[in-house]
């Protein structure tokens, strides 16, 4: 700290010789002139003195009969005039500071965190509609309004927070991760549960409605499992009226599911020839600067690799360097071997089984075989599964008057 102050005020290294240098030093200290780094070499003294003190030396020098010579000059007061001569440098310095202040008035990067269902593209186009974009002035940004708009536009966002740190706008959102339950339409008329498949009922728990089938019964596709009309009888066991409800039950049906997947004998395989061409490009904001490129190969694919230097990321400068790698390949026709075909078909089968499991289907029996027919490999399977069923369908309204007549 003291060193810095000395530097700012400026100091000199001087040489003192003559009649009485000791007295010179005593007088200096008496008048409050700081001396440091005092060294004696022969009859000559070397010491440092601050600039202000140096100007007050003349009477002391005259009094003590010593002579003073300046050896070196240090500090800002000596450095600055030299700097001022270099006009372009100073102008550049001021320009840089000005640019720094000027550029800090804009938003240079927008960060989005916490989005799972809403894609970045969707969000970006929404921001564009709100006139929030890279390069906008910070003054024009109304963060509270933006937060409100986000919540209004996307009902699945339960919490949104935007924060401007430096030139970076960070938007944190939280999406509603509990599944949206579709509202059941409460109908006066009542709903039946009907079967989607043909099969045998193996389990049945009825919560509301009148069961139309029993465990062990074989049902057809579309047949009613639980009725949504509950008959109400008079004391004399005659039907008075129907009470309509929405049937609700857990019914598990055992039925057979067939699965077939074919695979042609031949397939096209990409074989890279190993020839590659690389092109470098520069991206500034959304603009890409690169040299014009002819079609590099007859058949090729391209790989884009982009990275921004860490410094740019930290400073939120939207510039990045990237490379295009064009890789030549040939389409080669290949024939599946038995093993390969088996593997490819098995993968498809596993996908199918996983989708069944996700629906809560239990597989009781399976019978899968791989064959060859005229077109290619065929995987056919038959599964005995237990699956929850029950699809709502409107209950047939019975005319009570008629029913009563029939009852009587």
């Amino acid at each position, binding site marked *: 700290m003291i060193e810095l102050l000395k530097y700012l005020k400026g100091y000199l290294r001087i040489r003192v010789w003559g009649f009485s240098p*000791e007295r010179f*030093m*005593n007088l200096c200290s008496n008048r409050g002139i700081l001396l*440091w780094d*005092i*060294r004696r070499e022969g009859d000559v003294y070397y010491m440092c003195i601050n600039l202000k003190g140096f100007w007050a030396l003349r009477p002391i020098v005259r009094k003590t009969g010593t002579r003073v010579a300046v050896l070196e000059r240090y500090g800002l007061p000596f450095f600055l005039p030299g700097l001022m001569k270099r006009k372009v440098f100073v102008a550049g310095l001021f320009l840089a500071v000005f640019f720094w202040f000027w550029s800090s008035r804009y938003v240079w990067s927008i960060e989005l965190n916490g989005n799972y269902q809403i894609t970045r593209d969707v969000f970006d186009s929404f921001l564009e509609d709100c006139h929030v974009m890279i390069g906008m002035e910070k003054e024009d940004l109304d963060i509270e309004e933006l937060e409100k708009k986000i919540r209004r536009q996307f009902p699945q966002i339960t919490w949104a927070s935007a924060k401007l740190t430096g030139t970076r706008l960070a938007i944190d959102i939280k999406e509603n991760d509990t599944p949206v339950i579709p509202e059941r339409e409460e109908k006066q008329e009542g709903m039946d549960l009907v079967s989607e498949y043909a099969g045998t009922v193996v389990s049945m728990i009825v919560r509301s409605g009148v069961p139309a089938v029993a465990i062990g019964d074989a049902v057809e596709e579309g047949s009613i499992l639980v009725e949504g009309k509950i008959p109400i009888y008079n004391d004399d066991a005659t039907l008075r009226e129907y009470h309509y409800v929405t049937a609700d039950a857990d019914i598990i049906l055992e039925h057979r599911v067939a699965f077939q997947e074919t695979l042609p004998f031949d397939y096209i395989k990409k074989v890279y020839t190993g020839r590659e061409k690389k092109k470098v490009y520069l991206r500034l904001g959304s603009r890409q600067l690169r040299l014009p490129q002819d079609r590099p190969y007859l058949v090729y694919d391209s790989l884009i690799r982009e990275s921004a230097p860490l410094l740019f990321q930290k400073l939120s400068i939207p510039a990045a360097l990237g490379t295009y790698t064009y890789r030549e390949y040939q389409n080669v026709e290949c024939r599946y071997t038995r093993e390969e075909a088996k593997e490819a078909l098995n993968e498809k089968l596993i996908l199918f089984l996983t989708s069944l499991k996700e629906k809560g289907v239990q597989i009781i029996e399976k019978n899968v075989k791989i064959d060859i027919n005229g077109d290619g490999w065929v995987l056919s399977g038959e599964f005995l599964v237990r699956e929850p069923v029950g699809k709502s369908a409107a209950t047939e309204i019975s005319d009570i008057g008629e029913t009563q007549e029939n009852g009587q």
Partner: protein
Amino acid sequence: MESLKLPKDILMGALKVTLTGSHEAWIENYRGILEYTECQILLQGKTCQVCFEGSRLSIDYYTNEDMKISGCIACVRYL
């Protein structure tokens, strides 16, 4: 004087010498330098003189209040 608990060096006008090892010395309450060479520094106090002897002696700083001597101090003598 004892009961007032005032620092003795100020009241008596005595020299105050603080030595750190044999390489550094801080001196307060002096009047001035009488002699300064590489192997001897003679200081004038209010009541006495003090002489630092040694080799490669130099004065790191020198103000009205205090000073610092560094170098290889071999002996401190009161005259």
